[in-house]
């Protein structure tokens, strides 16, 4: 595979054909914030927190570093004033749904985001799609998907499949950047078990499946 050089935050970085900007940056020890990105999954580009400024072929563009391919000679800036402003707003908008998500709290700290800037709409899901994609791409069970669009978009377990598959899996829970709350809630709803039982189930399953599946 051919190698080429690009510039990230003023640093010369050697990348291989097919690498995204996030991957190229990582290889050079440069951290670009991500939320919906996962090394095991196909790039998705939903949270946009990884947005960077990239200059290629004479055009300066804002691109999502987790999906955008690194290109030869590209000049990337990952920490500009404009990016900080954008990331602050995005974090604030996500915090309207998940005010206590640890990753969001960390980002809020970094970008000076105000978790109460927008009216609360606690769904505890930022629709990063990690659970959905993990189930589809890694487990290949398609037990969980999206329903509806725009602001009404939600994740949803397909009861038939979930009834068979999820009970002993729940590997998606620990992936959730908002502490697994939403996936657990939606799954229990789908399985229509009594709420107390479900909460217990979800809580314990999360930790055991972690140790079970991380190998």
């Amino acid at each position, binding site marked *: 595979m051919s190698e080429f050089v690009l510039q990230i935050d003023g640093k010369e970085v050697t990348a291989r054909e097919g690498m995204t900007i996030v991957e190229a940056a990582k290889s050079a020890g440069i951290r670009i914030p991500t939320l919906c990105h996962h090394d095991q999954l196909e790039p998705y580009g939903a949270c*946009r927190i990884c947005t960077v400024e990239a200059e290629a072929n004479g055009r300066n563009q804002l691109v999502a570093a987790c999906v*955008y391919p690194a290109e030869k000679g590209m000049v990337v800036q990952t920490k500009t004033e404009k990016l900080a*402003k954008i990331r602050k*707003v*995005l974090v604030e*908008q996500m915090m309207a749904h998940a005010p206590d998500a640890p990753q969001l709290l960390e980002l809020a700290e970094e970008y000076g985001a105000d978790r109460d800037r927008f009216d609360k709409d606690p769904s505890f899901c930022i629709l990063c799609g990690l659970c959905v994609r993990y189930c589809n791409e890694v487990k290949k069970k398609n037990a969980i998907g999206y329903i*509806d*669009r*725009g*602001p009404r978009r939600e994740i949803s377990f397909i009861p038939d499949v979930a009834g068979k598959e999820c009970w002993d899996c729940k590997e998606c829970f620990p992936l959730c950047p908002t502490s697994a709350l939403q996936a657990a809630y939606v799954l229990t709803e789908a399985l229509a078990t009594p709420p107390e039982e479900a909460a217990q189930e979800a809580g314990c399953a999360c930790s055991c499946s972690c140790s079970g599946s991380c190998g």
Partner: protein
Amino acid sequence: MPRINSPAELEEFRRSILSKRSDDRPCITLCSGSACHATGSEKVAGAIVAELENHGLTGQVDFRRTGCHGFCEQGPIVVIYPEGICYLKVKPEDICEIVSHTFKEKKLVERLLYVDPTNGEKSSFEHDIPFYKNQQRLILGLNRKIDPKSLEDFLAVGGYKALTKALFEMSPEEVIGEVKAAKLRGRGGAGFPSGMKWEFARKAPGDQKYVVVNCDEGDPGAYMDRSLMEGNPFTVLEGLMIGAYAIGATEGYIYVRQEYPLAVDNLSVAMKEAERRGLLGKNIMGSGFDFTVKVHRGAGAFICGEETSLLASLEGKPGEPKSRPPFPANKGLWGKPTNINNVETWANIPVIINEGAEFFSSVGTESSKGTKIFSLVGKVNNTGLVEVPMGIPLRDIIYKIGGGVPKGKKFKAVQTGGPSGGCIPEAYLDVKVDFDELMKMGAMMGSGGMIVMDEDTCLVDIARYFLEFLSDESCGKCVPCREGIRQMLKVMTDITQGKGKEGDIELLENMAMATQGAALCALGKTAPNPVLSTLKYFREEYEAHIKEKRCPALSCKELIAFHIDPEKCKGCGSCLRKCPANAIEGGKKTIHVIDQEKCTKCGTCIEACPAAFQAIGKLSGVPVPAPVPQEKRALA
């Protein structure tokens, strides 16, 4: 003649069709496009057949059912040839008179002619009507001459000449060269140079390539693509085949919006006809070029018009955008190089090949060549589809073609570019309409939506309305679009309801910046435009809503009150009788009073109050004067 096997056979077939036709033969044409269909053209057609029969004219007078003429609000439209006499809003009961008067006695049916609302002048002929007179119909013009289902009609107006020329006289590279030289830019919204896009797809490695027609047309109120597809499917097919040949594709897809059944019907008939004659399928006209095409019904979502979503939807997946690169030209449908263009873009191709790049690029401006079809709607006298050369001043479209704003109201703004376009105020009406100029104004060409607004329109509310549309239509995948539009919409709704706060404008600007910058696809990236463009030109209206709780256009319901002026009320009771909310108190010869608690702000009373009194008005930003005490309401 069954199958056409060579250009010579095509020309022979064309000659035999033309030999049976003549320009001075009397012909009655009836628009049978979707809009005229809805206003009753089916029944009119029945009446025409019957009346021609009754008057013994069957066989002497041709009858042709055509596609949309663009002046849909005046439909059903009947045009009589060879003169070109144009009758509007024709009803079945008018046909007897049309046939007997116009054909037999050569007299006009005056009441069916166009009357200019601005000066009362009548136009007898199609080409005299101001709406048509100031257009340049390079693309749409054929619609009124042909029956969309008739290959013979299409051949009679020069159909398939461009395809023949491309296949037999030009190499694929030469075709691409011509389209590049013509400087055609895509009509679907982004205005990307078509020739360049074709070249990317041609050069992309791969044996299997695809061409796609985007006929998803989701902009509310826009219907240029429908009219083209319905009215002249052969032209779109011809353009598509030329593109396929140039790119090296043998398969095509036509993605048609769910709500366009007539377009699908006409297109399907056209495809069958072309296939039967060897103008589609294997070894077209003996050239060795094979091409097949499939029609796909859209999934019913605005976002499916975005090219990567459209391709996903064609593959049977959810219609959600993907990040580019890779671009469809390299990895499109099923991962193969794919070229996707808008209907109108494809329809321009035969013109470019027939007339040449030089002619084509002589029309328009430096950066935008050819014509553009707009859907002119809103507060304008003549509404409909207008095709104009690029570079025409906005003012000409609105005043010369559109006939200005009705009812003597003042023009306020024109919104161009569809839901994520922008509003342009009076001061900039002389701007030359092209891709770049509109962009500079903070608006855009989009697919050609053009909504005229008068002084009664609140632009803050208009921006809110478009945001609401975009919020509903966002696929919901990415945060800046899903959450950004949702939050902007909340703020905008608050402002129009009088709940706006200090700092809201800055908050909107801050969110707009993030959404514009970080959204995944163009829906999100352009979604803040309605807010930004109205903020740019009408900021003081935002401020009036926020600071004074006043709607300057007297339009936002939460900020206005209806009030009867006690000095002007004559106690006639018209308003009281009409008010659907029973909100008006009054009696014979007494001053009428609106109960503000009950009033639903429907506006019926203003219309009801006799023009001579004009006692009812709207108030905003000021307290409603206390009602005249009961005992003082009696009028002398």
